[in-house]
């Protein structure tokens, strides 16, 4: 197989979906953020955002922490070390494929 095609085939499919790619990129640049910030930046509705985050959590890329800001519930999200490593590798592979 052509090495460039192999690189494309090696792209992480969990991250490669556009919605999840946006979330991974946003979370990669920060220590952690809340659900509202991701909703504001991506323009996704709550259901879609929750489903993408669940998928990333299942893959072990995102850590979810439920807490309270005063009396208001707050969901905090951060990339796990495995998530950071996977995203770096995804960028490297994508660069190689392009």
């Amino acid at each position, binding site marked *: 197989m052509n090495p460039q095609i192999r690189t494309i085939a090696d792209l992480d499919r969990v991250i490669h979906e556009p919605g999840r*790619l946006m979330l991974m990129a*946003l979370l990669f*640049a*920060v220590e952690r953020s809340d659900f509202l910030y991701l909703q504001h930046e991506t323009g996704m509705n709550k259901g879609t955002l929750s489903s993408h985050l669940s998928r990333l959590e299942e893959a072990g890329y995102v850590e979810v922490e439920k807490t309270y800001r005063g009396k*208001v519930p707050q969901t*905090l999200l951060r990339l796990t070390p495995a998530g950071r490593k996977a995203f770096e590798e995804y960028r490297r592979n994508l660069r190689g494929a392009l």
Partner: protein
Amino acid sequence: MEQIESLLNRPKAYCNIDGVGELAIGFMCLAYSLLMWLQANAPKDSIWHGMPAFIVYVGLMCLILHYGPKAIKKHITYPRTGFVEYRKCHTVCRPMILGFVVSAALSAGLMFGLRRHWNMTTPASLIGLLLAAGYAYRIARTVRWKWAVVSVVALGSIVIAVLPADVVGALADHSSVRGAFLLTFVLYGVALLVSGGISFWLYLRHTEAPAPEAQ
């Protein structure tokens, strides 16, 4: 690939989405200018020449700079558009190292020039150009209308640089170097306060706090 890089830069732009960063720096510049003006123009036996007044003034300023923006973020920004905690290497280490290197280089250059009795008024005024460049790199790249602020600061610095030394010196006990710094800080402080104020107003106009269950 470019879109991914742009997404990676979005959290940096979010830091000043409400203009609070600019308001804080503008306040700091004006507070320093006021202190410089008081020290230059107050009588020699005034409290403004003593260390206790300096410590209290700077301490108070630091308290306002530390807690003011935090309070605005906590009560206005986070409930409206969300909370972000930045990586320490981006918000603490790099700016601290850069700030230290730049200020050390500037101070060394200024001391060297003054010891050799060079006319340092023009170089001191041109620090405004450095501030304008920093502002352009950090803020104006992401918000197009902020280039107007860059232009105002850059043009203002050039005007200060060409003003007669005695006019500039009249502001600060006949020291034209100190007068040039004073005018530059006032210019930068006012420009940032106005720009930050406009950003804050636009932010309040275009966002609203969602219902609690939406978070």
